[in-house]
């Protein structure tokens, strides 16, 4: 599968995750967010930016616990929980936020 944006073609897997992670840009993120019916706000970007920073450093998506703690540290304790993250990304921070951030699809059994 693939989609086109501003003249460039982006290959994705069957669930819409970018195959070439280097192709990610803010515009791509906006496009992917629109596909997911997520309206990107400052709060949404905080999560995306953290995910990308973490991925660049460790080459793996952070465990949810690390994500909530980091968000809590940055934005205050009342936001450092999964409930807040699911309010931003109803499809789940692992699945939906990683997709918009251009990270690989989370694997593993449920």
């Amino acid at each position: 599968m693939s989609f086109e944006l501003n003249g460039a073609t982006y290959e994705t897997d069957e669930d819409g995750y970018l195959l070439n992670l280097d192709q990610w840009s803010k515009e791509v993120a906006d496009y992917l967010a629109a596909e997911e019916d997520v309206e990107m706000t400052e709060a949404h970007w905080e999560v995306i930016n953290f995910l990308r920073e973490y991925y660049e450093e460790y080459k793996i998506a952070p465990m949810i616990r690390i994500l909530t703690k980091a968000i809590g540290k940055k934005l205050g304790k009342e936001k450092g929980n999964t409930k807040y993250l699911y309010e931003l990304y109803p499809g789940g921070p692992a699945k939906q936020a990683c997709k918009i951030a251009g990270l690989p699809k989370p694997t593993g059994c449920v």
Partner: protein
Amino acid sequence: MGGGFRRVYPENRPDHGGINKDEGLGESGARRPHVASLQQFGGLLESKRVYLHLLVNPYSCAINFAFRYIKRIGWQNQMKGSGMSSENKINTSMIDDLESGPWPSFVKDLKSLATKKPAVGQLLGQLNQSYEDRWNYWQGTVLNVDGYGGGVIARYSELAEKYPDIAQFHTIRIIPPAGWVYSTATLRELCDIWEKHSAGIIQLHGMTGDILLLGSDNKSTFDAAEELMEHGWDLGGSGAALRTLACCVGQARCEMALIDTMAIQTHITNTYISELHRPEFPYKYKFKISGCANDCACAMQRSDMPIIGTWRGPMQIDQAEVGKFVDGHGADFVIDNVITRCPTNCISLKDNQIEVDDDNCVRCMHCINVMHKALKPGKDRGATILIGGKRTLKIGDTMSSVLVPFMKLQTEEDWEKLTDLVERIWEFWGEHALEHERVGEFINRIGLGAFLDGVGLEPHPEMITAPRSNPYIKFEELAPGMLEGESGHDPAVVNEEVESMESTNS
């Protein structure tokens, strides 16, 4: 679909041609004799609108119900004209044997449901093919209801071309009421909702304790979840989350119950509903609550944190009733079935009177079960908190072992002490465990001593899971003589102080 988790048995893959189809034929029936429907009870439970069929699993004491919602009159006519009875469409030769015998049969149940829901016929077809090919054709993946990180177990069929109606065959987990007490109106409502949106299979209850609703597709999963929530149901736990709790019937229906299991379950569910819906642990975490050591919820085997009712101090003995029991059954019966079966030999019978050495009693409940009029648990009641039961993953199956020997669990303040301990465990385990590491495996890896330090508990002799049993024990005073071939010594007495301290952390 990438990202799925599956078994790989390359030598058995059908396309590798490694299957001997004659091997093991006919065994499939014998493998699962306990999974079947109480067809013969159908008449008792049948109402004008609902068939209730019980699936009973005697081994785990769990009760499963399979529901059908078929009008009785139309049922047999439909069977005659359906694809199921024509046999040439769906081959069920490998599983037909499961219909025979006096016990319940899920094949029989599903076949009759198939007259109404073609997907169920195809489900049996795929199961049959799985037995023939020795290959599991289900692919698992993630499906989220908005705002939930779990509760839906998504399954895609690899044989979707052959069995199009089960291309997507998902399971929804629903939190049941504590103690599994329902009104019939509630069950009818559940049946109505589920019949509308899916293949209509309901399992009461899965090993998890949830109500399992099987057979929805990508879209109907959301529709059904929405309608269920409108009627006050909520999704259960799945994945690396707190799982739906389960408890025995407790004080609602059992005189043995020493704690209010249903209240504790409801309290924990409500307190940690966020952890239940949104996975944030290294891996799953399960509570199961039993009112006494009979452990009808099988908490010790199948939960990370069993809470089991117990008591402190002396057992209550009604010697007049003891006398009646002995007169009625004979002293031999009492000795054979009560006295000699005490695991710590702490009970004795003298002149038609029972004596119990309460210091050595381990509260196993056996004597109380047999002589339930004469003997009763003590009056100071509470719970033992255990930790670490699980099935095989990083290490083999483990049963739980004691973490807190006794804790009062009567008031909300008592419950707070429990939830405080739970949170310390989650914090320490969440911070230091490996991915997919259950708390029992975590303790196995780091040692109980380190775990107790981490969660702030003092070591206690009750925490010993098993007395030391390895043969490499030094008997200093015996060793030289034995080496020279000398024999005839009395057996050495183990130095209790040293040995018990060592085994605490083994």
